[in-house]
């Protein structure tokens, strides 16, 4: 189908809620990958659901300054941060810069499936702050440019760039012995 995201958004806004479906199909997988690496597999689908629900309800707040995909990822990233904050609060009081296992408490079947390299990557991701992790996975796996990462995380491009730098350094350091 040739409709751009902007066309579909316009149709949904005009009252054709069915036009939201292709938007779900286009963006659910990317949001899932983000959520999975941020919060772990168990909650990833919930994050996707909530993200798209919010996107639908808040569509009138969406301004086409950023792409629909970027906007959706911003909603998803904020949900992930909320979730991680709640988890952290449950364990320890007021952590300003929350760290949270990328895939907490892996189930035995997961461990069996995971290659050693994957386990290493997950462990390395655990060493990042949540913002570093989001910036890194958007840059590294999702192919987002620094400018889009800045939009998703609602920080300046300089801050986004520095966050990616820090993340890469930490990832390299913790994977140095493994690869």
């Amino acid at each position, binding site marked *: 189908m040739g409709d751009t995201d902007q066309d579909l958004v316009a149709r949904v806004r005009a009252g*054709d*809620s069915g036009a*939201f479906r292709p938007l779900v199909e286009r963006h659910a*997988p990317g949001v899932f990958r983000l959520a999975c690496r941020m919060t772990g597999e168990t909650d990833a689908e919930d994050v*996707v659901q909530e993200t798209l629900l919010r996107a639908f309800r808040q569509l009138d707040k969406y301004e086409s300054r950023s792409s629909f995909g970027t906007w959706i990822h911003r909603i998803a990233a904020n949900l992930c941060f909320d979730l991680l904050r*709640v988890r952290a609060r449950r364990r320890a009081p007021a952590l300003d810069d929350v760290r949270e296992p990328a895939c907490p408490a892996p189930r035995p079947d997961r461990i069996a499936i995971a290659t050693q390299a994957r386990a290493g990557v997950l462990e390395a991701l655990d060493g990042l702050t949540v913002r570093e992790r989001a910036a890194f996975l958007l840059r590294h796996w999702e192919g987002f440019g620094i400018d889009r990462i800045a939009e998703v995380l609602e920080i300046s491009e300089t801050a986004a760039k520095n966050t990616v730098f820090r993340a890469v350094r930490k990832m390299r350091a913790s994977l140095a012995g493994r690869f």
Partner: protein
Amino acid sequence: MTGHLGEDDLILLYYGERGAPADARHHLRECPDCAAEFQALSSALDRMAGDEVHVPPGLSSRVWARLQPGMPAPRIRRWPKPLAWMATAAAIALASFHLGRHTAPEPPPATAMETRERALVASLGHHLERSRMVLTEVSNAPIGADLSNERLEARDLLASNRLYRQTAAFAGRFEYQDLLDELEQALLEIAQETEPLPRASGENLMFRMKVIESKIDPQEGQL
């Protein structure tokens, strides 16, 4: 260009980002030290790239199916409604459930649905908080502790929980419905159980309750 390239420059080059010195590519070709450094960085990052997330099949269809019931019918515009009217309608919507009218004769118009949902969300936070306290009490209690108060409270919460679950189902809020289903089971076990009490409340359930609580905006009474 005077010195060697820094790691930050190499990272920018690796990802094809702007911001590295203008002659960085040229320097990489000329300088074996920087070339080796870039090679090391690239191979480390390349190896991480192999870590793929498996997106579960049918994800988009499931998400879409759960979204649909909450969507307004096409071409219905949402006009701002007077707050007083909203509050009354919300009270009536909830009261109608108290009176046992659990099924509507016809699908309600979007506005009634919205109103009911608002009322649901507005008071759900408090209900979840109370329930969570009971679950926490029970799961932290030493074996053999007297839990009669918690059982009474659980029975009380059960009644309202059913109401919330039905409202959530009606409004198509499946994420609440599922949670409330699970909560109902946990409360039921506490309310009915003789020793030993289950630790069935489960981390995951507690966690999801907290998440939903944390998502509810008290000012709007809405997500």
